[in-house]
């Protein structure tokens, strides 16, 4: 009997589960190994090589990284990416939070406003960028025409090294603020109503209720959204490609644009891979922070 039992622990159903389980996940595992894991490993390796588009590649050690450290344009691109993130993230989060707070009050027409503000989110980034490039055009642009109504001679926006980046930042905020807004609305709706009632009974005013009740309750969502927005902003490309092509005088050349240009315009694949690896490391750092936070909060909530 006991012998039979021992055999039974490796029963046919369990063996069956192993086989079917692996069969079920095999397409995905095979796919993400070929299309994610291997390419990432390969990109990492290519960062240590001199790899032209045609012809032989050769091992170059840390040359690419050394050269990147001396490359003014790379530092400029890195700085521009930080500039973009530092401009976009606070603006986006503050506006999204404000809108979410305004829209969760039970007043008429809130759904209509929410739809209006969400519409750019589902619009193609390329279309949005083209339209804003037009809106910001020097002579025929809508913005400058409005300014002209007030007798102000509008600037050249996207052709001005000091104004191009702020213009791209504002355009990007408008494009995506609706997404964070919807996330915040969902978080606000999950704050238990009895907390507000308790605050009211205690005689807390609206400001106090916000800082003592609402904000602590939605902090996890806010933090995770901030990091998600940071990661997204580090990968900015489409709007730069359409609106400024990295110019004027490199003032909007961001990291992904630099990588794309180095790889697919100048065909210096090894050098571009080194830059891509640096991008990967920066994103990895933020992802790890996010995981730590998420772990802590999930624990906290339960």
């Amino acid at each position, binding site marked *: 009997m006991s012998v039979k039992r021992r055999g039974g622990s490796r029963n046919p159903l369990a063996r069956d589960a192993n086989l079917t389980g*692996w069969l079920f*996940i095999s*397409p995905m595992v095979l796919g993400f190994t070929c299309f994610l894991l291997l390419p990432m490993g390969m990109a990492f390796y290519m960062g240590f090589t001199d790899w032209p588009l045609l012809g032989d590649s050769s091992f170059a050690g840390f040359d690419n990284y050394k050269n990147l450290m001396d490359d003014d344009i790379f530092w400029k691109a890195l700085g521009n990416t930080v500039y973009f993130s530092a401009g976009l993230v606070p603006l986006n989060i503050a506006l999204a939070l404000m809108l979410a707070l305004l829209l969760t009050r039970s007043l008429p027409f809130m759904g209509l*406003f929410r739809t209006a*503000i969400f519409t750019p989110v589902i619009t193609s980034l390329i*279309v949005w960028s083209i339209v804003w490039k037009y809106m910001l*055009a020097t002579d025929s642009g809508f913005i400058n025409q409005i300014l002209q109504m007030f007798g102000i001679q509008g600037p050249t926006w996207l052709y001005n090294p000091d104004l191009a980046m702020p213009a791209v930042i504002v355009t990007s905020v408008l494009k995506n603020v609706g997404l964070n807004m919807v996330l915040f609305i969902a978080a606000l709706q999950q704050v238990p109503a009895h907390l507000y009632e308790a605050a009211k009974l205690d005689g807390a005013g609206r400001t106090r209720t916000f800082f003592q009740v609402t904000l602590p309750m939605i902090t996890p969502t806010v933090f995770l959204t901030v990091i*998600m927005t940071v990661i997204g902003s580090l990968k900015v490309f489409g709007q730069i490609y359409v609106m400024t092509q990295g110019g004027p005088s490199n003032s909007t050349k961001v990291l992904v644009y630099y990588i794309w240009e180095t790889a697919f315009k100048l065909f210096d694949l090894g050098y571009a891979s080194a830059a891509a690896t640096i991008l990967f490391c920066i994103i990895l750092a933020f992802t790890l922070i*996010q995981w730590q936070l998420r772990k802590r909060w999930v624990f906290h909530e339960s």
Partner: protein
Amino acid sequence: MKAEPMIKPAPRVRLRPGVLLHYLILTLISVIMILPFVWMLSTSLKEPSDIFVFPPQWIPSPIRWENYSEVLQAIPFGRFYFNSVYIAALVTIGTVLFASLSGYAFGRIPFVGRNLVFLILLSTMMIPHEATSIPMFLFMRDLGFINTHFPLIVVPIFGAGGVFGVFVMRQFFLTLPKELEEAAMIDGCSRFGIYWRIMLPLAGPAISTLTIFTFLTCWNEFYDPLIFVNSRELMTIPLGLSLFTDEAGTSWHLLMSASVMATLPLLIIFFFAQKQFMEGVAMTGLKD
């Protein structure tokens, strides 16, 4: 004296200054959001010379429908549309199929190594595909797939989007009761049968959210088409549009006609299925 229109029953909202300010802010921001669309539509129907007219003209006169036919002559817009639709459709079908298959296994089948593989899978989600695109380009070149739709279809299915799909489907399958499977097993149903005939039909809500998310992401994808495709008749809408931007220069009336054509269909679908769209897109909140 039947009904007094002035005295409505229970006027819930009085226009206190606070509420007024509330609406003022929301209106202002909504106008900023919608204005580009209105301006786009307006310009798309203008004579080239009317674009520079000051003060800005909201309703073009005369209305110039020819802008649209001119765009259609300049670029193969129908072709872009066809490419975008069928690529996004295939990516969506593939993602839902493979992601639900793995998601079901990760959620319901206790196999050896399940947690480890799932952890590896989750951690690959953070790999930015801008970083993997260079080796991917070489890989596709060696296989002869440059300037074909193959990379645009296969890479997203098994890339970060697909991995994310696995995660979403697993979370959903975890919530279903065990009894369903047990009953089916007693009836002699195979694992695949359970997945295909019982689990998948129950996963409707998760699948529809994943569908919208995947379709939209793919529809708006720009970086991959830019790298992998270079002949005009293979381009998707975003890539074709950006190319047209280079060609048309400041022929804004034509650019706006093209933009309207690229935007309108999706916008109409959005207005009819707002809830699903917001849920689908808000899923990005779980991603990364």
